[in-house]
């Protein structure tokens, strides 16, 4: 058995390193975008429109990944787009986590009418098609970074609330909670000192997964042109442009798509890897 376990552990380790590595790389690239980007991401030059990447015939030196139809440098736009994607991942992810996990914890541990209200709200939320709901919210609030973040929080809190509620309910039924009650602790203080630490690994995993979801939601919103102002570089906006000129300039679609793909995959694999790491059987 020990042999199989170490094999799984090695595979989990590899998963964590690869996905964590890509995200660390992306964070560095986003932070250093002003120094790394060879061009101004907004600079248009119609004479340099649809230049192919550096290794393809007809390329211009300095435009490593080519240019889009307006002559904007694809590499620079990907680098600056990473900033928005990562800010959304971090801020929207943490806020969603904070609100969703708190509500789930309350519903699962306090039970009673709190649970009834929160569970009913979750049911209603689950009946909304999420993509349509987010587009609707952006239309209501107007495009912009704050709207994107708020839309993600408003829609995705149920992801945390559902899982954390179930976990908190399971923990609440255990003996150690009863003994904390017997010792005269208040319910609320038991919730934070006894239940929360035991649910925390699950919350961390969910948070990592949520960051990947936030990145994809931002990409979808900018794909339908509802994210931030249309000039600012976003991966989704680049993909939307690439989709329309796919037969003339594949690179406008392919490079942002690969970046987005790897980022979403990494967040998700990181979450899965952490889940395995926290699994007491494997420890």
């Amino acid at each position, binding site marked *: 058995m020990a042999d199989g376990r170490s094999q799984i552990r090695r595979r989990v380790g590899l998963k964590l390193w690869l996905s964590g590595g890509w995200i660390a790389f992306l964070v560095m690239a986003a932070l250093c975008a002003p120094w790394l980007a060879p061009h101004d991401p907004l600079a248009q030059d119609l004479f340099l429109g649809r230049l192919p990447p550096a290794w393809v015939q007809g390329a211009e030196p300095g435009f490593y990944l080519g240019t889009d139809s307006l002559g904007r440098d694809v590499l620079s736009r990907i680098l600056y787009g990473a900033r928005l994607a990562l800010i959304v991942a971090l801020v929207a992810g943490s806020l969603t986590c904070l609100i969703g996990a708190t509500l789930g914890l309350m519903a699962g541990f306090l039970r009673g009418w709190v649970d009834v209200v929160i569970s009913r709200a979750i049911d*209603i939320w689950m009946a*909304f*098609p999420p993509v*349509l709901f987010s*587009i*609707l919210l952006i239309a209501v609030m107007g495009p912009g970074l704050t709207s994107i973040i708020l839309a993600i929080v408003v829609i995705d809190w149920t992801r945390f609330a559902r899982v954390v509620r179930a976990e908190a309910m399971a923990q609440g039924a255990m003996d150690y909670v009863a003994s904390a009650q017997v010792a005269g602790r208040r319910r609320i203080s038991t919730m934070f000192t006894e239940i929360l630490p035991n649910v925390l690994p699950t919350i961390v995993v969910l948070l990592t997964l949520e960051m990947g979801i936030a990145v994809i939601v931002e990409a979808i919103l900018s*794909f339908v042109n509802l994210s931030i102002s249309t000039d600012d570089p976003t991966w989704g906006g680049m993909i939307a442009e690439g989709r329309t000129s796919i037969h003339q300039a*594949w690179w406008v679609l392919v490079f942002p*798509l690969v970046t987005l793909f790897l980022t*979403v995959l990494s967040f998700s694999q990181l979450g899965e890897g952490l889940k395995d790491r926290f699994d007491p059987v494997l420890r």
Partner: protein
Amino acid sequence: MQLFRAFLLRLFTTAITLSGVAVIVFFVIRVVPGNPIAMMLPPGATEADVARLTARYGFDKSIPEQFLIWLQGVVQGDFGTSITSNQPVLGLVLGRLPATLELSIMALVIAVFIGGFIALTGTRNRGTSVEAAIDVGNGMALSVPDFLWGLVLILLFGVLWPVFHISGRVTPSLDLPFTTNFYLFESVLRLRFDLWADIVSHMFMPALALAIPLAAIIGQLLKQSLKETMHLDYVTLARTKGYGENHVILREALPNAILPTLTLVGVQFTFLIGGTVIIERLFSYEGLGNMAIDAVINRDLPLIQGIVILFAAIFTAVNLIVDLSYAFLNPRLRHG
């Protein structure tokens, strides 16, 4: 009797959920900035024109009042009039529904086939490198949402090796003899396989994009339950009787392992239907989702309302059917 009462309770909570959705959508979209009426009129329209149209769509009344009027209409099957096209919302929405239903069901069928194949192959080759490869593939398919798979498919089979159409539902120049909007279904009924082939080559990629994550989930869960079932005594008995591995997996293990997967497929199917919104946009497929995004961009409030509520109704209906069929399929729940 107990089952009947559970059913009534379920129906009741479904009704609450749907009214909750209706209320939320109604109030949320009335906070929309930008006057939808002003956008409809040509430049140079007078104040009086604006006032007349505002009154016609009822936007001059208070929001609770508007809600009551709207609710009254809904009870009578009237979901209002679309602002952009000036047609009844119900007709517009029902006209697009078949396209989305056909796409979702095609995706579900593809997902069940691929997922089932993955699970059976994985169980047949359990403990080998084939199973390990399947696990890695499943993990990837699950991690990446349908939107990205759609883009990858467009690149692979629309551009690199163009075998499928990447936009639309059917080639526009074709002459369509259909009386309903269930094109795929009707083309089979009318034995027009030329049209059928054209429709399928438009639908296949969006359906596959929707199916990939679900196929991975089905593959993973079904494989797990199959492997657990393979250890049970009756399976060992079947094996000692001399049945081959394929017979044991398909005839003995599968019927007992399939129940958890069925429930999961039901729940996941609603996620798949939700995914059609962006996938239809990506493939310019003329379904409900594409119409919804246009409605949001054009601030067509009555239409948005109708579409969101229809989606919510489909979601809750699917969940209801799943719960009922689970109660029906699981003998332990059949007799209360």
